[in-house]
């Protein structure tokens, strides 16, 4: 069956692979069942306060048998074994693993002390199989189902915000299923996005953010929104090459591994929950409120005004969105067959009128024990989602709900006339549309149908040896449509577009692990594995204009755009890893992985990624126990060094010089691409060193995980500009170098833990400093949907704003024009660059507010407008603070997230300031009878007509580069649990939660968190036309039967 799936999905999979697979599968034929004894055990698992611990994982050591405690901490298990005595291992995230010997049937109650450092927690990501955290030389972050549930987010990536140190989680759009960008330990690439590798139950999944029909800024949904966060049991995150080397060419942006829930032995457990969601806009843009307009907006000396009415169109386009979520899961099992089945529906309205998102999911996970040496896991999930999107606008697409607000003067009544015709709005012109018509009449939709399947065979053929084989398949189709009927204000000819995308990802992995004791105090763990990964996508786009009436499909108009794109890529790799343990306190690990890919140059198909790591549990050494043990109850030192690559930075066919078809005079010709191929292209290589310490004080009640890391990304892929006399314009080459250095701290404190009262704090703090070391030239603008306003400059962080400043006097005050208006700085760019960027000049020329600025005889700026470094979109630090209180049946949780020390280009405000559009609040102030002064740093200037436009149209970027630092009340939750005495209902929980209720910032726009370019690296912190992140309130209940 596996092979059929493989050959059916891969279009041109080579025959050798298939024969390879057969060999491997033959290796893993099951061994016969040999059960001689049966122990029936049961009991209750509690924490040190005596509170029952739900969902504790219980397994029989050395076998694949096991179960989990119920929500009330109770468990029952039938053990079949050929041994006289077995060891039951009780493990749960955040608690010290307990081993219990069982030699007869009976009741075994277990108390589990909390373990804030999780030395005994078993993780699998970045290791060659289940490994205790104590063995790892690198940091690993884990997130539990409860943490995700408390976040009440629609998307798992959004729920991760603030829970993982070193992760910058950014919602780039406030659409009802808005895109999320995650950057682990800074950005490590320029040429592609820097999203981590996502693996769900062993399946490599697609988290792309394809926009088949452009709906505007911020990026559309990312595909992890297809996963219901409630299905997740646990998430493991590793953040860089030092931990991820065995993932080879895919891991330089880190790895996020997600495990969904599994059935537990026992009677069926049914969980039903339902909630209501309310979304509203948190902050609006300030628009022109002046009751006048200039008769001649372009002539600053003509102060004649006319009276006008003002309208704030936001009152109509923003609307409170109401949604609801229903979730049902059933799980249980017989001991040899366990199951987990869930179904859900989520309907969510956006804050833009008429936008919504509707998602339905079904998941089934089945585990079957074949013998005491073999078991098989099968999981499958289906997702369908449908969204009504309102275009928001963006570069090249100006008639959008948010952009149009900026391009009109807010002086026209936008409501339609009696015949339903919408008026054009005064301001920029008809091309920008009528914003009421955009939300009422435009019809943009997207539908996703997705299935993911995993089949995993687990073998423990003899003591110490375990192996598994996984086939993962992720497949979805995306269908997007956009329709503007004929006769709209912006598009009189009408517009219709349809895009279809089919994406398939297949991976086949085999892993084996062999544990043995070399001597009583020295253990060896050897791991080896093979992976084959294949992805393919096909995309078709059709677009038509000059529509007839009524008909919405492509046939209703004249075809203007057509495209048909196929993409195909494979990665093959093997790894070997060896860990030596000394007295279970010191662990040394070394591994290597070799990779090849169809995207790499022909001679670059054996990329090698080494890794070494060490960990030392000092607190278990006698000398420690006798000296510091009383104060520092746990202490682990760890260090790790490794390399990994970034295959997704290379397009599947980018190594070729491609000749593209062109249609001409009834024939089809071929034209070489202006981008030359590079047959020596190889993945970017990240080399990372991380050093850290995990320690706990006060009898493990206060724990710290601290990590310092240093990353160097070499062979950075850059689009190199070529001399046109080569016959081409560009070539993607391995040219550059980037570095990231940072520090991460996670603190957990258990302040009170009593039978009916608990108080916990969790805090994270992360810093990252990024530097562009080498980009084969001093600087270039990164063109990625933001008008190339952010730059890669050697010696600077990636994505700095290198833009035009105000002309200033020596004392820092504005140097105004003779007409009393602000103006742009002018002078010699070469002098500035020499002083600041290249460090080649110093002395006399490198002084003044802006080195290189020039003044003419009248003291006015002279020369060309200058660009200077005005800001940086990379945060200096990010942090979060979580408070958790449990009191009897009440629960309370609050999470604040802080992102500090970064700048945002407020392009929205720039448009508002321009006299071609005339819609801004500041622009309106100039129209008042007695305009208030413009003040900056305590110095005030007379606000004359043309002041706002001087920066808006004159393009003084400095005005719009704002500090984006914010502190947000990301999550707040109050819950109450009722435990009725009835037999049928075990617990009813009622909860009210809020997301993004409050933001503390000085930003003069919707929200400094959004970004025009979605997840793109290099371009972040650019605000134009993005939907703000809504304020969300969720109220609901969960019933456990």
């Amino acid at each position: 069956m596996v092979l059929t799936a493989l050959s059916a999905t891969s279009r041109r999979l080579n025959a050798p692979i298939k024969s390879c697979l057969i060999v491997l599968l033959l290796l893993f034929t099951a061994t016969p069942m040999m059960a001689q004894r049966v122990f029936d055990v049961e009991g209750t698992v509690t924490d040190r306060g005596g509170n029952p611990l739900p969902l504790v994982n219980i397994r029989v050591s050395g076998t694949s048998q096991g179960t989990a405690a119920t929500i009330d901490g109770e468990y029952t298990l039938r053990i079949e074994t050929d041994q006289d005595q077995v060891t039951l291992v009780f493990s749960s995230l955040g608690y010290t693993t307990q081993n219990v010997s069982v030699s007869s049937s009976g009741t075994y109650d277990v108390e589990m002390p909390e373990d804030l450092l999780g030395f005994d927690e078993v993780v699998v990501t970045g290791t060659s199989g289940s490994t205790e955290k104590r063995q790892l030389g690198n940091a690993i972050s884990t997130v539990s189902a409860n943490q995700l549930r408390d976040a009440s987010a629609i998307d798992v990536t959004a729920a991760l915000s603030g829970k993982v140190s070193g992760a910058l989680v950014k919602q780039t759009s406030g659409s009802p299923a808005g895109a999320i960008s995650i950057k682990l330990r800074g950005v490590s690439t320029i040429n592609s996005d820097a999203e981590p590798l996502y693996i769900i139950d062993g399946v490599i999944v697609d988290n792309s953010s394809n926009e088949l029909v452009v709906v505007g800024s911020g990026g559309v949904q990312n595909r992890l929104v297809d996963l219901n966060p409630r299905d997740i049991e646990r998430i493991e995150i590793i953040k860089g090459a030092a931990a991820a080397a065995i993932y080879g060419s895919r891991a330089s942006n880190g790895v996020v591994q997600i495990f969904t829930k599994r059935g537990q032995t026992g009677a069926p457990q049914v969980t039903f929950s339902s909630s209501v969601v309310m979304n509203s806009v948190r902050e609006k843009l300030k628009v022109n409120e002046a009751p006048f307009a200039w008769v001649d907006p372009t002539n600053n000396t003509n102060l004649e005004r006319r009276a006008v009415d003002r309208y704030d169109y936001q009152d109509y386009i923003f609307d409170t969105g109401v949604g609801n979520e229903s979730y049902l899961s059933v799980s249980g099992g017989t001991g040899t067959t366990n199951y987990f089945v869930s179904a859900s529906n989520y309907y969510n309205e956006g804050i833009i009128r008429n936008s919504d998102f509707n998602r339905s999911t079904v998941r089934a996970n089945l585990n079957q024990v074949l013998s005491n040496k073999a078991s098989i896991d099968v999981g499958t999930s289906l997702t369908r989602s449908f969204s009504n999107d309102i275009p928001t606008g963006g570069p090249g697409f100006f008639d959008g709900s948010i952009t149009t607000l900026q391009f009109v003067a807010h002086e026209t009544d936008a409501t339609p006339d009696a015949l339903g015709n919408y008026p054009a709005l005064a301001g920029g012109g008809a091309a920008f549309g009528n914003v009421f018509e955009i939300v009422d009449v435009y019809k943009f939709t997207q539908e996703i149908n997705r299935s993911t399947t995993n089949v995993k065979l687990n073998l423990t053929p003899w003591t110490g040896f375990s192996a598994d084989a996984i086939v993962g398949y992720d497949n979805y189709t995306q269908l997007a449509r956009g329709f503007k009927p004929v006769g709209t204000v912006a598009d009189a000819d009408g517009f219709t577009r349809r895009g279809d995308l089919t994406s398939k990802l297949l991976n086949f992995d085999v892993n084996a692990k062999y544990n043995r004791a070399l001597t009583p105090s020295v253990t060896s763990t050897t791991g080896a594995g093979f992976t084959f990964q294949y992805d393919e996508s096909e995309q078709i786009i059709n677009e038509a204009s000059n529509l007839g009436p009524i008909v919405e499909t492509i046939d209703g108009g004249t075809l203007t755009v057509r495209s048909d794109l196929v993409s195909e890529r494979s990665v093959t790799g093997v790894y070997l890893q060896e860990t030596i343990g000394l007295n279970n306190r010191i662990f040394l690990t070394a591994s290597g992985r070799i990779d090849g890919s169809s995207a790499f140059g022909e001679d670059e198909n054996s990329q090698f990624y080494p890794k070494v790591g060490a960990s030392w549990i000092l607190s278990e050494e006698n000398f420690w126990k006798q000296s510091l043990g009383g104060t520092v109850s746990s202490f682990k030192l760890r260090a790790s060094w490794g390399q990994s690559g970034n295959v997704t930075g290379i397009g599947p066919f980018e190594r070729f010089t491609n000749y593209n078809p062109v249609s001409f005079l009834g024939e089809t010709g071929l034209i070489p691409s202006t981008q030359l191929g590079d047959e020596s292209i190889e993945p970017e290589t990240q080399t990372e060193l991380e050093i850290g310490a995990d320690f706990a004080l006060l009898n493990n009640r206060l724990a710290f995980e601290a990590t310092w890391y240093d990353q160097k990304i070499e062979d950075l892929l850059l689009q190199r500009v070529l001399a046109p006399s080569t016959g081409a314009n560009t070539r993607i080459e391995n040219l550059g170098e980037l570095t990231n250095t940072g520090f991460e701290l996670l603190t957990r404190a258990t302040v009170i833990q009593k039978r009916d009262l608990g108080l916990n704090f969790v805090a994270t703090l992360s810093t990252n400093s990024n530097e562009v070391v080498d980009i084969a030239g001093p600087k270039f603008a990164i063109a990625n949907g933001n008008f190339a306003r952010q730059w890669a400059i050697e010696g600077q962080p990636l994505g700095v704003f290198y833009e035009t400043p105000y002309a200033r006097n020596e004392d820092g005050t504005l140097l105004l024009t003779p007409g009393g208006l602000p103006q742009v700085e002018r002078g010699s760019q070469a002098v500035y660059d020499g002083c600041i960027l290249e460090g080649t000049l110093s002395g006399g020329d490198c002084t003044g507010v802006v080195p290189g600025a020039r003044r003419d005889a009248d003291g006015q700026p002279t020369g060309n407008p200058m660009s200077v470094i005005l800001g940086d979109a990379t945060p200096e630090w990010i942090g979060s603070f979580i408070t958790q209180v449990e009191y009897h049946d009440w629960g309370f949780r609050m999470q604040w997230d802080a992102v500090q020390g970064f700048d945002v280009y407020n392009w929205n405000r720039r448009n508002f300031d321009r006299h071609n559009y005339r819609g801004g609040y500041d622009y309106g102030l100039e129209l008042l009878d007695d305009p208030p002064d413009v003040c900056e740093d305590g110095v005030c200037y007379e606000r004359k007509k043309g002041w706002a436009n001087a920066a808006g149209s004159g393009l003084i970027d400095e005005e719009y580069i704002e500090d984006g630092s914010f502190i947000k009340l990301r999550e707040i939750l109050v819950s109450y649990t009722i435990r009725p005495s009835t037999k049928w209902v075990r617990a009813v929980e009622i909860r009210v939660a809020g997301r993004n209720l409050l933001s503390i910032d000085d930003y003069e726009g919707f929200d400094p968190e959004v970004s025009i370019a979605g997840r793109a690296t290099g371009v972040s912190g650019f605000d134009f036309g993005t939907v703000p992140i809504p304020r969300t309130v969720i109220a609901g209940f969960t019933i456990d039967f």
Partner: protein
Amino acid sequence: MRRKTILAVAFGLSISVLGTSCDSFENPNAASEDQVVNTLDGLQALAIGMKREYQINSLDEVIRASGLSARELGVVLGFTNPQDLEAGGANLRPDNGIPVTIWATSFRVLGMADAIIENAPNVISDAPTRNAFLATGYLFRAIAIGNLYMFWESFPTEVSSDGEGQFVPRATALQAAIADLEAGLSALGGADPPAGFRTAVFGTNNFDLRAVLEAHLARYNGFLGNHAAAIAAANRALSGATTISQWSYEATNPNQMWLQTNQEPATYRPLDNFGFDSTAYVVPDEDGRKAFFLVPSDAIGESSRLPVETMAGFFSDQADPIPVYLPGEMYLIRAEAEARSGNLAGATVSINMVREKTDDPWGVNAGLGPYDGPQTAEALLAEIYRNRKVELFLTGLSLEDSRRFGQPIQPSPPDFDSYDRNRNFYPFPQTERDNNPNTPADPAI
């Protein structure tokens, strides 16, 4: 233990067997270089692509650049690149998109032509077809070099993938173009290209490859002052042509100059009086070419404030063909060569062929009386220049003509009424300078 060891070894072996990457996928969206240059179909598609690249991305920029630098066009919609080019002068930026595009597309065409010339002998067995491909490759190579010659003092004549192309002086480069044209003619020999080749590659039967090669040979020999060769080639082009030769367009690949000058809102419009300084020469109303090219209008240019007319001529409709060369040009090349080599009577005859023409296949008919001015070389050359400016209006030759005929260049500060062109040569493109260490210093103006 033995069994375990064997299994472990087997596992290790199978892993290492699998470790070698097996895959190399072909790109279904595009062809690879190997596929293109090693098949007849591939070379034919490349020839079509090359011709499209020239017609759609290069030719219009040549016409526009010379039109703006040598007073044929006025900018009526405010875009920076055309306005800067229209203003001209010493400060023209090296990243102005119009010259940069001429430079880049010329090298793209050059590279494609080289691929055809290099590979046709190995791939095409049928001799007439092979020769037609070779002649086409040589023609486009020569055209690319000829266009670079008109705008830059020196430039590489070969594409070089290492980005370090060697610059050669423009006259030397044009000699190479002439050699290419001669090689093209010699490849054709006495045979005509197969009819199927003409319609497939040129999209029309209105393309006489031999006459086009001869016409360019005449043009470039004329540029270099090779008078006898120019006269001979011009005569062969005139007498040997079996049909007019045209660049064809269609709705999906429209006439780019129509798009820029006639599709509203137009960016450019033709200057009044063909751009002549009206104190020096006024094109008389009875000159039939005035009505052919210009529709009277009261509009004025946006920044130059010069009066402009509405465009007619070869740019009235999106599918209007553009002549590859005009018969009038051949007469004027002959006249110029004769005048410069002292054959004043012959020059007069040639000038009158243009002045009295009423049967031009393209409809460019002056319909004037014979030349009645002084029989001096100077006067005849002035008459030839006037006629070139009118007869060859917006064919891309005007900057080269203005320079060769020694017309006045823009003074500083500019005075719109006193000059014929605003630059001699363009600065080298910034991207070339940034990436090719051999790029010479820019000309002063």
